């Protein structure tokens, strides 16, 4: 892939930690790649694994799910469920031939603006290396 390829990343951020963390990254003037389309969800446990599948189908080159650190969930345990489900999904995706670099999960708290930047850089870099996702993307996409 040429070095100019800019991947589309869909990021699901939990309202209470990661979204605030991304906000902090902004207010602290951290510079990070602008390839992300951020979708705010109330909790990482809200992220149905099929969202990830659907994002890839609709033209995403990578997906990032980010939530509170274990034990810090606003809803006590939502991120534990997310960890279990999305861990399984990652195994399944890998098995059917989706590059593991396309899907990442991270814990970013509201005070970790700098960590958020690093996570985004890693995600974008990985997706860029993996190249445009051609796997089971829908063939006619008009956006």
């Amino acid at each position, binding site marked *: 892939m040429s070095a100019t390829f800019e991947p589309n990343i869909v990021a699901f951020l939990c309202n209470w930690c990661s979204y605030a963390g991304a906000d902090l990254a902004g207010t602290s003037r951290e510079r990070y790649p602008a390839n992300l389309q951020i979708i705010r969800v109330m909790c990482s446990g809200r992220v149905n*694994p*099929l969202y990830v*599948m*659907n994002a890839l*189908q609709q033209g995403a080159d990578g997906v990032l799910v980010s939530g509170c650190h*274990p*034990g810090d969930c606003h809803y006590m*345990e939502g991120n*534990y*469920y997310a*960890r*279990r*489900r999305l*861990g*399984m*999904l*990652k*195994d*399944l*995706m*890998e*098995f*059917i*031939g*989706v*590059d*593991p670099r396309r899907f*990442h*999960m*991270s*814990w970013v708290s509201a005070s970790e603006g700098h960590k958020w930047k690093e*996570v985004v850089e*890693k*995600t974008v870099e990985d997706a860029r290396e993996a190249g445009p996702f051609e*796997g*089971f*993307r*829908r*063939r006619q996409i008009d956006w």
Partner: protein
Amino acid sequence: MELEQLQKTAAEVADREDVKYVIGWKKGSYGYRVAPGFIEDAAGAAELIFSPLCTANLATYLTLVEKLPVPRGQEADDRKVAVMVKGCDSRAVAQLLVEKGIGREEVVVIGCPCPGVVDPELLAEKYPETEETVEIKWTEDGFLLVRGEEEIEISRDELLAEKCRLCRYPNPVISDVMLGEPVETRELVEDEGVAEIENRDVDERAAYWEEQFAKCVRCYSCRNVCPLCYCQDCILDRLNPTWVNRAVNFSENTAFNIARAFHLAGRCIECGECERVCPANIPLGRLNRKLAREVRDKYGFEPGVDPEAEPFQASFKPDDPEDFIL
């Protein structure tokens, strides 16, 4: 197991006041066919059989029953349903109990220890079907095929179904009535089908599954036959939101297969029915067994073994593996 004992037990259970019917296997229309039999009284029990051809998982019928509203002034029929299960099928019943898909008081489980069933496709390939009466029996170390006058000894490895080669629960894990003696349990063997795919690199795996999923005709047989796919409102049928489009193309087929496999992660009890009924011969069993193995190795969980367990995807442990997290 003696056939007489099976029929006698089935007759006794069918005659019980609190039992609506017994679900068992009976001879099909011709050749190797085996059909499910719904036995309401002792007389019907003479139809029942149990042979290496009884591959079907009858636990499916427990949740397929349509529950109609009870008309005013009438009492609901809350009699039990009795079902004959092999080892793998009994795990489906146990998993249904875990998920509260059925209640323990709604079902009578008749356990049949199973030395392993044949692969129907392999059988029809090697010993073509005929219209004469065919019978298969278990012997000490294999199967005995009786076709008219002819008797053929077949070794176990030749015809054994893939799921049985990997089976570790040949004896029912739960049962109210047990038929015959428990059979010998075998050790966990390596799953060659899954390992073969894992050893390829990502692009080869993608190519392999593209070839497989492109064949899918989206008949949803795999969903319909699965004892654990019993949601009244299945995401595949839902139009708003449309999780999976109805178009039959590679993208939607893959989405469907991911959704199906994922919904069975930590629930699939490896009865292999999805693979058996698939008209396109997609190796769905490999997908399911891969996930089952991950669940077993990484999370130390095995579905359908303990009816008191917590459902896998609706529970967690604080120390679940998180090496994939950035």
